[in-house]
């Protein structure tokens, strides 16, 4: 049994665009129109720490990051879902780089002093941790929580036995837990 991509159309599109196919690149550019919108939505949820011109710069950075990694897209998630972590992590990296600016530091301090509903930055470490998981375990954890697949469905789409999927899921969670543990200790200190 071989592994089957869940989003075959998106995978085909990304591969054709990567090969330089003109029509595929047109379609790919259309699909990536979601990037500015995603970044704007994340910026809004963070309390607008980035000005519109900074957001424009961020769009360029995010598109460059997405394109540089497009070869790793395997169709396990929709293209938009695969793109979202890039938008979130690029935003957080930009904010971190600009943290030296007093207004931004004040905003972040204020946010931490008055925590409201969950913000995208609260999950930055989760996404960074997921990036560090080995591919077989990371895939299963993502499919379970982000694509909300059952173990049966995962076994079917990955072409694996259900026991293997469960073992990978448990190991992935345990590994992610140990990746995030030092960060949480740092945050608490």
């Amino acid at each position, binding site marked *: 049994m071989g592994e089957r991509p869940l989003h075959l159309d998106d995978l085909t599109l990304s591969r054709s665009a990567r090969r330089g196919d003109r029509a595929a690149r047109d379609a790919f550019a259309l699909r990536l129109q*979601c*990037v500015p*919108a995603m970044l*704007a939505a994340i910026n809004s949820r963070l309390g607008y720490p980035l000005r519109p011109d900074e957001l424009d710069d961020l769009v360029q950075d995010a598109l*460059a990051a997405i394109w540089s990694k497009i070869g790793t897209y395997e169709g396990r998630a929709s293209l938009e879902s695969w793109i*979202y972590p890039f938008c979130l992590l690029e935003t957080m990296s930009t904010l971190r780089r600009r943290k030296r600016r007093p207004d931004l530091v004040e905003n972040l301090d204020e946010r931490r002093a008055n925590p409201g509903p969950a913000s995208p930055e609260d*999950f930055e470490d989760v996404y960074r941790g997921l990036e560090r998981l080995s591919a077989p375990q990371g895939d299963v954890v993502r499919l*379970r929580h982000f694509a909300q697949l059952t173990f049966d469905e995962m076994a079917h789409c990955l072409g694996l036995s259900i026991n293997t999927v469960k073992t990978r899921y448990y190991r992935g969670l*345990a590994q992610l*837990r140990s990746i995030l543990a030092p960060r949480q200790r740092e945050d608490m200190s």
Partner: protein
Amino acid sequence: MSEELSRGAHEILQRLVAGDLDPEGPEGRALLEGDAKLRAAYESLLALAARLDAAAAQEREVLSSVEHQPQPGPPVRRILENIWSRQQRERRVFRLTLAAAAAVLLVLTTLALLHGLAKPERPPGAIELGGQSITCLAPLGEVRSYGTFRWRSGLPPGYTYRLIITDASSGREVHRVEALSEPEWMPAEALEASLPREILWTVQARMPGSEDAVLSGTARARLKDN
């Protein structure tokens, strides 16, 4: 977590997180209540799963909010075109650099091969002297006494010589003289008397300011039996 728990505990945790063991059922409850470490590990995994669900929920929320909204910001197409053309340029430069490096390597290899085939015995730093080497003049063959060591090299002034005398029967070095500026050397009487009955002597010519031997010559000499 993993280093503190037994293999059995990991198996129980896997059954719990995979939904094969009900934490509220009699078996699950008994296992969790009977082992504080196991319970703590299970709770930390549950908390992590909840964070993953929350991150996923927020992601879905953002994705659905952008789905039906007019797309703001700079034209994506133009930015992507810039990225693609820059990438193409970089690839072209990389290919050209690679081709140039390969060409240089090929030329250097060819030169090295030609040089190596033409002069296989020449040491590094050797200079071309029309194939001339050091000719040992005396002592040579059977001699009554070793006397003055003399040689001819044809090297211009500035080169120095090193003379090494070894015992021909054992191969042990018995004397060495450095930095001779003339093509001859006369041993002191006592030293000459102490030299073995049969010797090999080697003269090495050295470039000014260098340790590299440019040329060398070796000869054998043997004292006559009375």
